[in-house]
């Protein structure tokens, strides 16, 4: 195994381990922090796969924005310090979920091994594929349309989030005539 592979395995273990903690920890905020670890190590994986640009975008948007938003949400919904008992469904459902997830993993991995065992990623040679320049040019050479549509998506999400947070939207319950029963 080369250095890159060793590093990748380590990062992968960290990613999977922290992901497991995300879904099993019974402390709300810790879940978000483990998510940071997981996302960070996935970003490391991108780096090792020579997708540098994607890696930094991952850090910038996921860690810098998404997780912060999540934490923000957790705190606004009064995440308690320490363990909560009501984060997970009952034992039965957990067992079912574990079986489902395990089965899913089994199926996916079997299919992947069947399809791709023996294939190798060639990381040598032209390493510029993941650079910002190549990503940028690919974006504007092949993917202008989804890029533009995405900008509408972002705007819509922004307006949506703002309008949902405005105080003057919608009739207050006491003002509503009759209201739903």
């Amino acid at each position: 195994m080369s250095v890159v592979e060793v590093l990748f395995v380590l990062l992968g273990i960290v990613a999977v381990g922290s992901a497991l903690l995300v879904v099993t920890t019974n402390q709300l905020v810790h879940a978000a922090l483990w998510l940071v670890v997981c996302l960070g190590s996935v970003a490391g994986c991108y780096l090792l796969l020579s997708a540098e640009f994607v890696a930094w975008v991952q850090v910038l948007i996921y860690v810098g924005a998404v997780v912060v938003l999540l934490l923000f949400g957790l705190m606004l919904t009064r995440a308690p310090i320490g363990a909560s008992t009501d984060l997970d469904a009952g034992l039965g459902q957990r067992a079912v979920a574990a079986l489902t997830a395990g089965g899913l993993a089994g199926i996916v991995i079997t299919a992947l091994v069947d399809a791709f065992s023996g294939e190798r990623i060639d990381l040598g040679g032209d390493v510029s594929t993941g650079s910002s320049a190549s990503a940028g040019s690919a974006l504007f050479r092949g993917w202008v349309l989804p890029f533009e549509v995405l900008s509408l998506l972002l705007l819509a999400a922004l307006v949506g989030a703002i309008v949902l947070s405005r105080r003057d939207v919608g009739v207050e319950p006491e003002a509503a005539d009759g209201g739903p029963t």
Partner: protein
Amino acid sequence: MPLLMPLLVAALLFSIGAYGVLVRRNAILVLMSVELMLNAVNLNLVAFDVWLRDALLSGQVFTLFVITIAAAEVGLGLAIVLLVFRNRETSQLDLLTELREEPSDPAGVGTAAR
């Protein structure tokens, strides 16, 4: 590097995320589990992209899009979660039952027809 290495990590992440979605009762935790699943997708895409040496860089561009979509989703999603919390003082999903099915009425619509 063997292509399977990132793919396996991705498969595990995806399954773990799926487990979280099924098990978690808190809306924000479910959202986090979904983020894990999306990361699995991204890892897959990047790995395939590098492996295929895609001239269009479709995989990486797709990854960028997915990340952006995720950010937009989380932004709007949290606005909704907060809205629910403000109206309901909880973000536990199984406590949100105001819209559940009404108790069944054997006569049901039949009585309305009379």
